[in-house]
Protein backbone atom coordinates (compact mmCIF):
# COMPACT_ATOMS: atom_id res chain seq x y z
CA UNK A 1 0.00 0.00 0.00
CA UNK A 2 2.71 2.42 0.93
CA UNK A 3 4.42 1.75 -2.37
CA UNK A 4 1.23 2.70 -4.13
CA UNK A 5 0.94 5.92 -2.15
CA UNK A 6 4.54 6.84 -2.77
CA UNK A 7 4.16 6.23 -6.47
CA UNK A 8 1.01 8.30 -6.65
CA UNK A 9 2.57 11.12 -4.70
CA UNK A 10 5.54 11.09 -7.04
CA UNK A 11 3.23 11.33 -10.02
CA UNK A 12 1.47 14.26 -8.44
CA UNK A 13 4.72 16.06 -7.89
CA UNK A 14 5.81 15.50 -11.47
CA UNK A 15 2.46 16.81 -12.65
CA UNK A 16 2.83 19.94 -10.60
CA UNK A 17 6.32 20.56 -11.89
CA UNK A 18 5.13 20.22 -15.48
CA UNK A 19 2.24 22.53 -14.70
CA UNK A 20 4.38 25.20 -13.08
CA UNK A 21 6.92 25.17 -15.88
CA UNK A 22 4.19 25.37 -18.48
CA UNK A 23 2.36 28.27 -16.89
CA UNK A 24 5.65 30.06 -16.24
CA UNK A 25 6.50 29.87 -19.92
CA UNK A 26 3.08 30.60 -21.27
CA UNK A 27 2.62 33.65 -19.14
CA UNK A 28 5.91 35.12 -20.22
CA UNK A 29 5.14 34.49 -23.82
CA UNK A 30 1.92 36.48 -23.63
CA UNK A 31 3.54 39.82 -23.42
CA UNK A 32 5.26 42.45 -21.40
CA UNK A 33 3.53 43.54 -18.20
CA UNK A 34 5.69 46.59 -17.94
CA UNK A 35 4.09 48.24 -20.95
CA UNK A 36 0.72 47.82 -19.31
CA UNK A 37 1.85 49.38 -16.08
CA UNK A 38 3.14 52.63 -17.44
CA UNK A 39 1.74 55.51 -19.34
CA UNK A 40 1.97 56.53 -22.94
CA UNK A 41 4.80 59.00 -22.56
CA UNK A 42 6.95 56.70 -20.50
CA UNK A 43 10.62 56.71 -21.23
CA UNK A 44 12.95 53.74 -21.32
CA UNK A 45 14.19 54.64 -17.83
CA UNK A 46 10.69 54.29 -16.42
CA UNK A 47 10.29 50.90 -18.04
CA UNK A 48 13.69 49.74 -16.85
CA UNK A 49 12.98 50.86 -13.35
CA UNK A 50 9.79 48.86 -13.12
CA UNK A 51 11.33 45.90 -14.83
CA UNK A 52 14.11 45.85 -12.32
CA UNK A 53 11.74 46.30 -9.42
CA UNK A 54 9.95 43.17 -10.48
CA UNK A 55 12.96 41.10 -11.29
CA UNK A 56 11.83 40.87 -14.86
CA UNK A 57 15.22 41.86 -16.14
CA UNK A 58 16.72 38.60 -15.01
CA UNK A 59 16.92 35.72 -17.40
CA UNK A 60 14.05 33.29 -17.51
CA UNK A 61 15.85 30.33 -15.97
CA UNK A 62 16.88 32.50 -13.04
CA UNK A 63 13.33 33.72 -12.61
CA UNK A 64 12.02 30.17 -12.77
CA UNK A 65 14.44 28.91 -10.17
CA UNK A 66 13.50 31.73 -7.84
CA UNK A 67 9.86 30.98 -8.41
CA UNK A 68 10.29 27.28 -7.63
CA UNK A 69 12.45 27.95 -4.62
CA UNK A 70 9.84 30.24 -3.19
CA UNK A 71 7.06 27.86 -4.08
CA UNK A 72 8.68 25.14 -2.03
CA UNK A 73 8.49 27.32 1.02
CA UNK A 74 4.87 28.02 0.29
CA UNK A 75 5.46 31.49 -1.04
CA UNK A 76 4.08 31.77 -4.51
CA UNK A 77 5.34 35.21 -5.35
CA UNK A 78 3.98 38.67 -4.89
CA UNK A 79 1.39 40.09 -7.21
CA UNK A 80 2.50 43.08 -9.27
CA UNK A 81 -0.83 44.78 -8.90
CA UNK A 82 -1.91 43.86 -5.42
CA UNK A 83 1.54 43.82 -3.81
CA UNK A 84 0.65 41.04 -1.50
CA UNK A 85 1.60 37.36 -1.47
CA UNK A 86 -0.37 35.46 -4.08
CA UNK A 87 -1.15 32.69 -1.63
CA UNK A 88 -2.76 35.22 0.70
CA UNK A 89 -4.88 36.59 -2.14
CA UNK A 90 -5.79 33.08 -3.19
CA UNK A 91 -6.98 32.04 0.23
CA UNK A 92 -8.85 35.28 0.65
CA UNK A 93 -10.88 34.53 -2.46
CA UNK A 94 -11.11 30.77 -2.11
CA UNK A 95 -14.07 30.71 0.31
CA UNK A 96 -16.07 32.78 -2.16
CA UNK A 97 -15.31 30.41 -4.99
CA UNK A 98 -16.09 27.43 -2.84
CA UNK A 99 -19.39 28.94 -1.82
CA UNK A 100 -20.31 29.54 -5.42
CA UNK A 101 -19.11 26.09 -6.43
CA UNK A 102 -21.09 24.43 -3.69
CA UNK A 103 -24.22 26.36 -4.47
CA UNK A 104 -23.86 25.67 -8.17
CA UNK A 105 -23.33 21.98 -7.50
CA UNK A 106 -26.46 21.95 -5.40
CA UNK A 107 -28.39 23.56 -8.20
CA UNK A 108 -27.04 21.10 -10.72
CA UNK A 109 -28.20 18.30 -8.45
CA UNK A 110 -31.54 19.95 -7.84
CA UNK A 111 -32.18 20.16 -11.56
CA UNK A 112 -30.36 17.06 -12.70
CA UNK A 113 -31.53 14.45 -10.26
CA UNK A 114 -35.28 14.96 -10.48
CA UNK A 115 -34.97 15.30 -14.24
CA UNK A 116 -32.95 12.11 -14.34
CA UNK A 117 -35.44 10.22 -12.23
CA UNK A 118 -38.41 11.33 -14.31
CA UNK A 119 -36.49 10.49 -17.43
CA UNK A 120 -35.62 7.03 -16.21
CA UNK A 121 -38.99 6.14 -14.77
CA UNK A 122 -40.92 7.40 -17.78
CA UNK A 123 -38.28 6.21 -20.16
CA UNK A 124 -38.71 7.16 -23.85
CA UNK A 125 -41.95 8.99 -23.21
CA UNK A 126 -42.73 12.66 -23.69
CA UNK A 127 -41.79 13.27 -20.07
CA UNK A 128 -38.42 11.76 -20.77
CA UNK A 129 -37.86 14.30 -23.52
CA UNK A 130 -39.08 17.19 -21.42
CA UNK A 131 -36.78 16.27 -18.58
CA UNK A 132 -33.88 15.88 -20.95
CA UNK A 133 -34.77 19.19 -22.55
CA UNK A 134 -34.70 21.06 -19.27
CA UNK A 135 -31.32 19.69 -18.33
CA UNK A 136 -29.89 20.11 -21.79
CA UNK A 137 -30.97 23.74 -21.81
CA UNK A 138 -28.17 24.39 -19.39
CA UNK A 139 -25.68 23.06 -21.89
CA UNK A 140 -27.11 25.03 -24.75
CA UNK A 141 -27.04 28.54 -23.37
CA UNK A 142 -23.81 30.39 -22.78
CA UNK A 143 -23.38 31.18 -19.11
CA UNK A 144 -22.82 34.88 -19.54
CA UNK A 145 -26.04 35.32 -21.39
CA UNK A 146 -27.99 33.35 -18.85
CA UNK A 147 -26.43 35.36 -16.07
CA UNK A 148 -27.36 38.68 -17.62
CA UNK A 149 -30.89 37.55 -18.38
CA UNK A 150 -31.25 36.46 -14.75
CA UNK A 151 -30.03 39.85 -13.58
CA UNK A 152 -32.43 41.59 -15.91
CA UNK A 153 -35.39 39.47 -14.83
CA UNK A 154 -34.96 38.94 -11.13
CA UNK A 155 -33.03 42.01 -10.18
CA UNK A 156 -34.08 44.82 -12.47
CA UNK A 157 -37.65 43.86 -13.37
CA UNK A 158 -38.88 41.86 -10.40
CA UNK A 159 -36.56 43.47 -7.86
CA UNK A 160 -36.39 40.26 -5.88
CA UNK A 161 -32.63 39.78 -5.80
CA UNK A 162 -29.54 41.99 -5.69
CA UNK A 163 -27.65 42.37 -8.94
CA UNK A 164 -24.16 41.38 -8.04
CA UNK A 165 -21.40 40.97 -5.53
CA UNK A 166 -21.11 38.64 -2.59
CA UNK A 167 -23.24 38.81 0.53
CA UNK A 168 -26.01 36.70 1.90
CA UNK A 169 -27.82 33.82 0.22
CA UNK A 170 -29.69 36.18 -2.04
CA UNK A 171 -26.46 37.12 -3.76
CA UNK A 172 -25.57 33.51 -4.49
CA UNK A 173 -28.77 32.38 -6.15
CA UNK A 174 -28.35 33.83 -9.62
CA UNK A 175 -24.65 33.14 -10.13
CA UNK A 176 -25.14 29.63 -8.80
CA UNK A 177 -27.99 29.06 -11.21
CA UNK A 178 -26.04 30.46 -14.16
CA UNK A 179 -23.07 28.28 -13.29
CA UNK A 180 -24.82 25.15 -12.11
CA UNK A 181 -27.37 24.63 -14.83
CA UNK A 182 -24.55 23.74 -17.20
CA UNK A 183 -23.64 20.73 -15.11
CA UNK A 184 -27.21 19.58 -14.63
CA UNK A 185 -27.08 17.72 -17.92
CA UNK A 186 -24.33 15.39 -16.84
CA UNK A 187 -26.14 14.86 -13.55
CA UNK A 188 -29.25 13.96 -15.45
CA UNK A 189 -27.46 11.47 -17.64
CA UNK A 190 -25.79 9.76 -14.79
CA UNK A 191 -28.92 9.63 -12.65
CA UNK A 192 -30.91 8.34 -15.54
CA UNK A 193 -28.56 5.56 -16.46
CA UNK A 194 -27.92 4.57 -12.89
CA UNK A 195 -31.63 4.45 -12.23
CA UNK A 196 -32.25 2.43 -15.36
CA UNK A 197 -29.65 -0.09 -14.34
CA UNK A 198 -30.92 -0.35 -10.84
CA UNK A 199 -34.52 -0.44 -11.95
CA UNK A 200 -33.68 -3.37 -14.18
CA UNK A 201 -31.83 -5.23 -11.49
CA UNK A 202 -32.89 -8.38 -9.78
CA UNK A 203 -33.27 -6.63 -6.48
CA UNK A 204 -35.89 -4.26 -7.78
CA UNK A 205 -37.70 -6.95 -9.71
CA UNK A 206 -38.04 -8.81 -6.48
CA UNK A 207 -39.35 -5.74 -4.71
CA UNK A 208 -41.94 -5.28 -7.42
CA UNK A 209 -42.92 -8.93 -7.25
CA UNK A 210 -43.48 -8.48 -3.60
CA UNK A 211 -46.18 -6.06 -4.59
CA UNK A 212 -44.64 -2.86 -3.44
CA UNK A 213 -46.04 0.13 -5.34
CA UNK A 214 -43.79 1.73 -7.91
CA UNK A 215 -43.37 4.87 -5.93
CA UNK A 216 -42.01 3.03 -2.94
CA UNK A 217 -39.77 0.94 -5.12
CA UNK A 218 -38.22 3.99 -6.63
CA UNK A 219 -37.96 6.07 -3.51
CA UNK A 220 -36.66 3.46 -1.18
CA UNK A 221 -34.47 1.25 -3.26
CA UNK A 222 -33.55 2.48 -6.68
CA UNK A 223 -32.88 6.02 -5.68
CA UNK A 224 -30.37 5.32 -2.97
CA UNK A 225 -28.15 3.06 -4.99
CA UNK A 226 -28.33 5.08 -8.11
CA UNK A 227 -27.03 8.16 -6.40
CA UNK A 228 -23.57 7.04 -5.41
CA UNK A 229 -21.93 7.66 -8.77
CA UNK A 230 -23.91 10.86 -9.12
CA UNK A 231 -22.46 12.34 -5.99
CA UNK A 232 -18.99 11.30 -7.01
CA UNK A 233 -19.42 13.16 -10.25
CA UNK A 234 -20.81 16.14 -8.39
CA UNK A 235 -17.64 16.25 -6.34
CA UNK A 236 -15.47 16.20 -9.44
CA UNK A 237 -17.61 18.84 -11.13
CA UNK A 238 -17.34 21.11 -8.16
CA UNK A 239 -13.60 21.21 -8.45
CA UNK A 240 -13.94 22.05 -12.12
CA UNK A 241 -16.49 24.71 -11.33
CA UNK A 242 -14.37 26.45 -8.78
CA UNK A 243 -11.69 26.90 -11.35
CA UNK A 244 -13.87 27.55 -14.36
CA UNK A 245 -16.35 30.07 -13.07
CA UNK A 246 -14.50 32.99 -14.59
CA UNK A 247 -17.24 34.37 -16.76
CA UNK A 248 -19.94 34.10 -14.14
CA UNK A 249 -17.70 35.80 -11.62
CA UNK A 250 -17.01 38.68 -13.97
CA UNK A 251 -20.69 39.17 -14.83
CA UNK A 252 -21.79 39.11 -11.22
CA UNK A 253 -18.73 40.92 -9.86
CA UNK A 254 -18.29 37.87 -7.65
CA UNK A 255 -15.03 38.06 -5.66
CA UNK A 256 -13.73 34.64 -6.57
CA UNK A 257 -10.59 33.06 -7.90
CA UNK A 258 -11.74 32.94 -11.50
CA UNK A 259 -12.06 36.68 -11.63
CA UNK A 260 -8.71 37.11 -9.91
CA UNK A 261 -7.11 35.01 -12.61
CA UNK A 262 -8.95 36.75 -15.43
CA UNK A 263 -7.92 40.21 -14.33
CA UNK A 264 -4.41 38.98 -13.68
CA UNK A 265 -4.10 37.66 -17.19
CA UNK A 266 -5.23 40.84 -18.84
CA UNK A 267 -2.89 42.82 -16.62
CA UNK A 268 -0.08 40.39 -17.30
CA UNK A 269 0.38 40.06 -13.56
CA UNK A 270 2.83 37.17 -13.87
CA UNK A 271 3.18 36.15 -10.24
CA UNK A 272 -0.57 36.26 -9.78
CA UNK A 273 -1.34 34.10 -12.79
CA UNK A 274 1.43 31.66 -11.99
CA UNK A 275 0.48 31.46 -8.37
CA UNK A 276 -3.23 30.98 -8.96
CA UNK A 277 -2.71 28.32 -11.59
CA UNK A 278 -0.23 26.43 -9.44
CA UNK A 279 -2.54 26.66 -6.43
CA UNK A 280 -5.46 25.48 -8.52
CA UNK A 281 -3.34 22.69 -9.90
CA UNK A 282 -2.33 21.79 -6.39
CA UNK A 283 -5.96 21.56 -5.42
CA UNK A 284 -6.91 19.42 -8.40
CA UNK A 285 -3.93 17.14 -8.13
CA UNK A 286 -4.40 16.92 -4.40
CA UNK A 287 -8.02 15.92 -4.69
CA UNK A 288 -7.23 13.37 -7.39
CA UNK A 289 -4.52 11.93 -5.18
CA UNK A 290 -6.88 11.73 -2.24
CA UNK A 291 -9.58 10.04 -4.28
CA UNK A 292 -7.09 7.61 -5.79
CA UNK A 293 -5.80 6.61 -2.40
CA UNK A 294 -9.31 6.34 -1.03
CA UNK A 295 -10.39 4.04 -3.84
CA UNK A 296 -7.21 2.03 -3.39
CA UNK A 297 -8.14 1.48 0.22
CA UNK A 298 -11.57 0.30 -0.78
CA UNK A 299 -10.59 -1.78 -3.79
CA UNK A 300 -7.41 -3.85 -3.45
CA UNK A 301 -7.22 -4.50 -7.16
CA UNK A 302 -6.44 -0.87 -7.81
CA UNK A 303 -3.51 -0.95 -5.44
CA UNK A 304 -1.84 -3.58 -7.48
CA UNK A 305 -2.37 -1.93 -10.82
CA UNK A 306 0.09 0.44 -12.45
Amino acid at each position, binding site marked *: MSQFIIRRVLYSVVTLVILSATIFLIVRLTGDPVALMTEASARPEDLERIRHQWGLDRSWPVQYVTFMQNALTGELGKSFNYRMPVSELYFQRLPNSLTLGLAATLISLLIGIPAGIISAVKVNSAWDNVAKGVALLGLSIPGFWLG*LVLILTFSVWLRWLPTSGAGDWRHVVMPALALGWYFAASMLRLTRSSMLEVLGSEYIKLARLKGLPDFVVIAMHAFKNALIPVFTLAGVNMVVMV*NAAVIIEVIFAWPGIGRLLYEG*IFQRDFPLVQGV*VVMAGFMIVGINLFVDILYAFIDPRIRLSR
Partner: protein
Amino acid sequence: MATIPANTRLVSQRTASGRLGAVVKAAREAPLMAVVILGGLIVVALLADLIAPYDPTVPVKGAEMFVPPFWMDGGSLATPLGTDFQGRDILSRLIYGARVSLIVGLMGTLVAGGLGTGLGILSGYIGGWVDQIIMRVTDAWLALPAIVFAIFLAAMVGPSMWNIIVILGLVYWTRYARVIRGEVLSLRERDFVKLAEIAGASKLRVIRKHILPNVLNTATVLASLTVGVVIIAEASLSFLGVGVPPPQPAWGLMLSEARPTLMAGQWWLTVFPGFCILLIVLATQLFGDWLRVRLDPQTRNL
Protein backbone atom coordinates in the same frame (compact mmCIF):
# COMPACT_ATOMS: atom_id res chain seq x y z
CA MET B 1 -10.01 -14.70 -20.16
CA ALA B 2 -12.61 -11.95 -20.06
CA THR B 3 -15.99 -12.68 -21.49
CA ILE B 4 -17.13 -10.48 -24.30
CA PRO B 5 -20.55 -8.93 -23.79
CA ALA B 6 -23.04 -10.48 -26.13
CA ASN B 7 -23.95 -7.43 -28.16
CA THR B 8 -20.46 -6.24 -28.96
CA ARG B 9 -19.70 -6.32 -32.59
CA LEU B 10 -16.03 -6.76 -33.20
CA VAL B 11 -15.17 -4.53 -36.06
CA SER B 12 -12.82 -7.00 -37.60
CA GLN B 13 -15.73 -9.30 -38.09
CA ARG B 14 -18.03 -6.94 -39.92
CA THR B 15 -18.57 -7.16 -43.66
CA ALA B 16 -19.07 -4.26 -46.01
CA SER B 17 -22.69 -4.88 -46.87
CA GLY B 18 -23.44 -5.56 -43.25
CA ARG B 19 -22.13 -2.13 -42.42
CA LEU B 20 -24.22 -0.36 -45.03
CA GLY B 21 -27.32 -2.09 -43.80
CA ALA B 22 -26.51 -1.04 -40.29
CA VAL B 23 -26.17 2.59 -41.31
CA VAL B 24 -29.51 2.63 -43.10
CA LYS B 25 -31.20 1.00 -40.16
CA ALA B 26 -29.61 3.50 -37.84
CA ALA B 27 -30.71 6.46 -39.91
CA ARG B 28 -34.30 5.45 -39.65
CA GLU B 29 -34.15 5.20 -35.88
CA ALA B 30 -32.36 8.48 -35.27
CA PRO B 31 -34.18 11.19 -33.34
CA LEU B 32 -36.08 13.07 -35.96
CA MET B 33 -35.92 16.55 -34.55
CA ALA B 34 -32.19 16.45 -34.06
CA VAL B 35 -31.55 15.25 -37.57
CA VAL B 36 -33.87 17.83 -39.09
CA ILE B 37 -32.26 20.68 -37.18
CA LEU B 38 -28.74 19.61 -37.95
CA GLY B 39 -29.54 18.90 -41.54
CA GLY B 40 -31.24 22.23 -41.91
CA LEU B 41 -28.32 24.09 -40.41
CA ILE B 42 -25.87 22.32 -42.66
CA VAL B 43 -27.93 23.24 -45.70
CA VAL B 44 -28.15 26.85 -44.59
CA ALA B 45 -24.42 26.97 -44.02
CA LEU B 46 -23.66 25.49 -47.41
CA LEU B 47 -26.04 27.77 -49.28
CA ALA B 48 -25.27 30.91 -47.29
CA ASP B 49 -24.04 32.84 -50.31
CA LEU B 50 -27.33 32.18 -52.07
CA ILE B 51 -29.84 32.72 -49.30
CA ALA B 52 -28.35 35.58 -47.32
CA PRO B 53 -29.75 38.92 -48.48
CA TYR B 54 -26.69 41.01 -47.61
CA ASP B 55 -22.98 40.87 -46.91
CA PRO B 56 -22.83 40.12 -43.20
CA THR B 57 -19.74 42.18 -42.51
CA VAL B 58 -20.87 45.42 -44.09
CA PRO B 59 -23.52 47.85 -42.85
CA VAL B 60 -26.65 47.77 -44.97
CA LYS B 61 -26.79 50.80 -47.21
CA GLY B 62 -29.37 53.23 -45.99
CA ALA B 63 -30.28 51.28 -42.89
CA GLU B 64 -30.01 52.67 -39.42
CA MET B 65 -28.46 50.87 -36.53
CA PHE B 66 -30.66 49.02 -34.06
CA VAL B 67 -33.59 48.60 -36.43
CA PRO B 68 -36.02 46.16 -34.80
CA PRO B 69 -37.48 43.05 -36.50
CA PHE B 70 -40.03 43.71 -39.20
CA TRP B 71 -43.11 42.98 -37.08
CA MET B 72 -42.21 45.68 -34.59
CA ASP B 73 -42.57 49.42 -34.75
CA GLY B 74 -39.83 50.85 -36.91
CA GLY B 75 -38.94 47.52 -38.45
CA SER B 76 -38.74 46.87 -42.14
CA LEU B 77 -38.93 43.86 -44.39
CA ALA B 78 -35.65 44.89 -45.99
CA THR B 79 -33.95 43.82 -42.78
CA PRO B 80 -36.47 41.31 -41.47
CA LEU B 81 -34.73 40.43 -38.25
CA GLY B 82 -33.38 43.88 -37.59
CA THR B 83 -29.93 45.43 -37.59
CA ASP B 84 -27.10 45.66 -35.10
CA PHE B 85 -24.87 48.39 -33.68
CA GLN B 86 -23.13 48.80 -37.04
CA GLY B 87 -26.29 48.67 -39.11
CA ARG B 88 -25.61 45.16 -40.43
CA ASP B 89 -28.47 42.80 -41.25
CA ILE B 90 -29.05 40.27 -38.49
CA LEU B 91 -30.57 37.64 -40.74
CA SER B 92 -27.54 37.57 -43.02
CA ARG B 93 -25.26 37.40 -40.05
CA LEU B 94 -27.21 34.51 -38.62
CA ILE B 95 -27.06 32.63 -41.90
CA TYR B 96 -23.33 33.09 -42.34
CA GLY B 97 -22.87 32.51 -38.67
CA ALA B 98 -24.16 28.99 -39.13
CA ARG B 99 -21.09 28.34 -41.19
CA VAL B 100 -18.75 29.56 -38.52
CA SER B 101 -20.50 27.75 -35.71
CA LEU B 102 -20.63 24.51 -37.63
CA ILE B 103 -17.03 24.71 -38.77
CA VAL B 104 -15.75 25.71 -35.37
CA GLY B 105 -17.86 23.07 -33.69
CA LEU B 106 -16.98 20.25 -36.01
CA MET B 107 -13.34 21.10 -36.65
CA GLY B 108 -12.69 21.95 -33.05
CA THR B 109 -14.13 18.64 -32.01
CA LEU B 110 -12.07 16.91 -34.67
CA VAL B 111 -8.88 18.48 -33.44
CA ALA B 112 -9.70 17.68 -29.84
CA GLY B 113 -10.85 14.21 -30.72
CA GLY B 114 -7.93 13.47 -32.96
CA LEU B 115 -5.38 14.66 -30.49
CA GLY B 116 -7.07 13.06 -27.53
CA THR B 117 -7.74 9.76 -29.20
CA GLY B 118 -4.23 9.59 -30.55
CA LEU B 119 -2.69 10.28 -27.20
CA GLY B 120 -5.13 7.95 -25.50
CA ILE B 121 -4.22 5.10 -27.80
CA LEU B 122 -0.51 5.71 -27.40
CA SER B 123 -0.90 5.96 -23.69
CA GLY B 124 -3.02 2.89 -23.34
CA TYR B 125 -1.38 0.63 -25.82
CA ILE B 126 2.30 1.40 -25.45
CA GLY B 127 2.11 1.86 -21.73
CA GLY B 128 5.15 2.25 -19.56
CA TRP B 129 6.76 5.61 -19.20
CA VAL B 130 5.03 6.96 -22.32
CA ASP B 131 1.76 6.31 -20.56
CA GLN B 132 2.98 7.96 -17.38
CA ILE B 133 4.17 11.08 -19.16
CA ILE B 134 0.99 11.45 -21.12
CA MET B 135 -1.16 10.95 -18.06
CA ARG B 136 0.80 13.48 -16.05
CA VAL B 137 0.56 15.98 -18.88
CA THR B 138 -3.18 15.34 -19.01
CA ASP B 139 -3.49 16.06 -15.32
CA ALA B 140 -1.46 19.22 -15.60
CA TRP B 141 -3.47 20.31 -18.63
CA LEU B 142 -6.72 20.01 -16.75
CA ALA B 143 -5.49 22.45 -14.17
CA LEU B 144 -4.50 24.98 -16.80
CA PRO B 145 -7.34 27.39 -17.29
CA ALA B 146 -8.53 27.68 -20.87
CA ILE B 147 -8.30 31.45 -20.91
CA VAL B 148 -4.59 31.48 -20.26
CA PHE B 149 -4.22 29.21 -23.21
CA ALA B 150 -6.47 31.20 -25.42
CA ILE B 151 -4.68 34.46 -24.74
CA PHE B 152 -1.32 32.84 -25.17
CA LEU B 153 -2.23 31.42 -28.52
CA ALA B 154 -3.88 34.63 -29.60
CA ALA B 155 -0.70 36.43 -28.68
CA MET B 156 1.43 34.10 -30.70
CA VAL B 157 -0.58 33.76 -33.85
CA GLY B 158 -3.29 36.41 -33.85
CA PRO B 159 -7.04 35.80 -33.63
CA SER B 160 -8.74 34.03 -36.49
CA MET B 161 -11.35 31.34 -36.86
CA TRP B 162 -8.74 28.67 -37.48
CA ASN B 163 -6.77 29.64 -34.43
CA ILE B 164 -9.92 29.40 -32.38
CA ILE B 165 -10.35 25.88 -33.65
CA VAL B 166 -6.85 24.99 -32.55
CA ILE B 167 -7.39 26.63 -29.18
CA LEU B 168 -10.61 24.76 -28.55
CA GLY B 169 -9.02 21.54 -29.67
CA LEU B 170 -6.19 22.07 -27.23
CA VAL B 171 -8.61 22.76 -24.42
CA TYR B 172 -10.84 19.76 -24.88
CA TRP B 173 -8.55 16.92 -25.87
CA THR B 174 -8.12 15.75 -22.31
CA ARG B 175 -11.70 14.48 -22.21
CA TYR B 176 -10.87 11.98 -24.90
CA ALA B 177 -7.45 10.91 -23.74
CA ARG B 178 -8.64 9.54 -20.44
CA VAL B 179 -11.62 7.65 -21.73
CA ILE B 180 -9.90 6.26 -24.82
CA ARG B 181 -6.99 5.13 -22.73
CA GLY B 182 -9.36 3.17 -20.55
CA GLU B 183 -10.90 1.53 -23.60
CA VAL B 184 -7.53 0.66 -25.03
CA LEU B 185 -6.39 -0.85 -21.76
CA SER B 186 -9.27 -3.30 -21.85
CA LEU B 187 -8.95 -3.90 -25.59
CA ARG B 188 -5.32 -4.87 -25.14
CA GLU B 189 -6.35 -7.91 -23.21
CA ARG B 190 -8.74 -9.20 -25.84
CA ASP B 191 -8.05 -12.38 -27.74
CA PHE B 192 -7.99 -10.93 -31.21
CA VAL B 193 -5.43 -8.35 -30.24
CA LYS B 194 -3.27 -10.86 -28.47
CA LEU B 195 -3.50 -13.17 -31.46
CA ALA B 196 -2.34 -10.43 -33.78
CA GLU B 197 0.58 -9.66 -31.51
CA ILE B 198 1.64 -13.26 -31.34
CA ALA B 199 1.37 -13.52 -35.09
CA GLY B 200 4.11 -10.89 -35.24
CA ALA B 201 2.15 -7.82 -36.30
CA SER B 202 3.99 -4.57 -35.58
CA LYS B 203 2.60 -2.24 -32.93
CA LEU B 204 1.54 0.22 -35.58
CA ARG B 205 -0.35 -2.41 -37.49
CA VAL B 206 -2.16 -3.66 -34.44
CA ILE B 207 -3.18 -0.13 -33.59
CA ARG B 208 -4.34 0.58 -37.10
CA LYS B 209 -6.26 -2.58 -37.75
CA HIS B 210 -7.58 -3.59 -34.35
CA ILE B 211 -7.39 -0.92 -31.70
CA LEU B 212 -8.37 2.16 -33.67
CA PRO B 213 -11.54 0.86 -35.30
CA ASN B 214 -12.89 -0.40 -32.03
CA VAL B 215 -12.10 2.77 -30.26
CA LEU B 216 -13.80 4.88 -32.87
CA ASN B 217 -17.24 4.13 -31.50
CA THR B 218 -16.44 5.65 -28.17
CA ALA B 219 -14.63 8.49 -29.82
CA THR B 220 -17.61 9.24 -32.03
CA VAL B 221 -19.97 9.29 -29.10
CA LEU B 222 -17.66 11.59 -27.19
CA ALA B 223 -17.34 13.77 -30.24
CA SER B 224 -21.05 14.20 -30.67
CA LEU B 225 -21.33 15.27 -27.08
CA THR B 226 -18.38 17.63 -27.38
CA VAL B 227 -19.59 19.53 -30.43
CA GLY B 228 -22.15 21.44 -28.42
CA VAL B 229 -19.66 22.23 -25.72
CA VAL B 230 -17.20 23.57 -28.26
CA ILE B 231 -19.81 25.81 -29.83
CA ILE B 232 -20.66 27.30 -26.45
CA ALA B 233 -16.97 27.69 -25.75
CA GLU B 234 -16.69 29.86 -28.84
CA ALA B 235 -19.16 32.23 -27.22
CA SER B 236 -17.15 32.20 -24.01
CA LEU B 237 -13.96 33.00 -25.87
CA SER B 238 -15.71 35.95 -27.49
CA PHE B 239 -16.76 37.19 -24.10
CA LEU B 240 -13.16 37.07 -22.98
CA GLY B 241 -12.12 39.01 -26.05
CA VAL B 242 -10.20 36.22 -27.77
CA GLY B 243 -12.88 34.66 -29.90
CA VAL B 244 -13.62 34.77 -33.60
CA PRO B 245 -12.54 38.25 -34.66
CA PRO B 246 -15.13 40.77 -35.77
CA PRO B 247 -16.58 41.57 -38.25
CA GLN B 248 -16.85 37.88 -39.09
CA PRO B 249 -20.30 36.72 -38.03
CA ALA B 250 -20.31 33.99 -35.42
CA TRP B 251 -23.27 33.37 -33.17
CA GLY B 252 -21.20 33.41 -30.02
CA LEU B 253 -19.58 36.66 -31.07
CA MET B 254 -22.94 38.22 -31.91
CA LEU B 255 -24.21 37.23 -28.51
CA SER B 256 -21.20 38.60 -26.73
CA GLU B 257 -21.05 41.87 -28.66
CA ALA B 258 -24.68 42.54 -27.91
CA ARG B 259 -24.38 42.10 -24.16
CA PRO B 260 -25.01 45.73 -23.25
CA THR B 261 -28.15 45.81 -25.36
CA LEU B 262 -29.77 43.25 -23.07
CA MET B 263 -30.24 46.07 -20.62
CA ALA B 264 -31.46 48.48 -23.28
CA GLY B 265 -34.32 46.48 -24.65
CA GLN B 266 -32.94 45.56 -28.07
CA TRP B 267 -33.75 41.96 -27.36
CA TRP B 268 -33.45 40.77 -30.96
CA LEU B 269 -29.70 41.19 -30.93
CA THR B 270 -29.27 38.49 -28.33
CA VAL B 271 -32.34 36.33 -28.59
CA PHE B 272 -31.84 35.35 -32.22
CA PRO B 273 -28.21 34.23 -32.02
CA GLY B 274 -28.89 32.72 -28.62
CA PHE B 275 -31.74 30.74 -30.04
CA CYS B 276 -29.59 29.49 -32.91
CA ILE B 277 -26.92 28.33 -30.49
CA LEU B 278 -29.57 26.64 -28.44
CA LEU B 279 -30.91 24.81 -31.47
CA ILE B 280 -27.62 23.47 -32.67
CA VAL B 281 -26.38 22.43 -29.25
CA LEU B 282 -29.65 20.80 -28.34
CA ALA B 283 -29.66 18.94 -31.62
CA THR B 284 -26.11 17.68 -31.25
CA GLN B 285 -26.70 16.66 -27.66
CA LEU B 286 -29.85 14.72 -28.48
CA PHE B 287 -28.11 13.11 -31.42
CA GLY B 288 -25.13 12.27 -29.26
CA ASP B 289 -27.30 10.75 -26.58
CA TRP B 290 -28.98 8.57 -29.12
CA LEU B 291 -25.66 7.55 -30.66
CA ARG B 292 -24.34 6.70 -27.27
CA VAL B 293 -27.11 4.30 -26.50
CA ARG B 294 -26.89 2.67 -29.91
CA LEU B 295 -23.22 2.45 -30.56
CA ASP B 296 -21.63 1.44 -27.37
CA PRO B 297 -23.38 0.30 -24.24
CA GLN B 298 -20.14 0.63 -22.34
CA THR B 299 -20.24 4.38 -22.57
CA ARG B 300 -23.76 4.61 -21.30
CA ASN B 301 -22.57 6.01 -18.05
CA LEU B 302 -20.56 8.88 -19.54
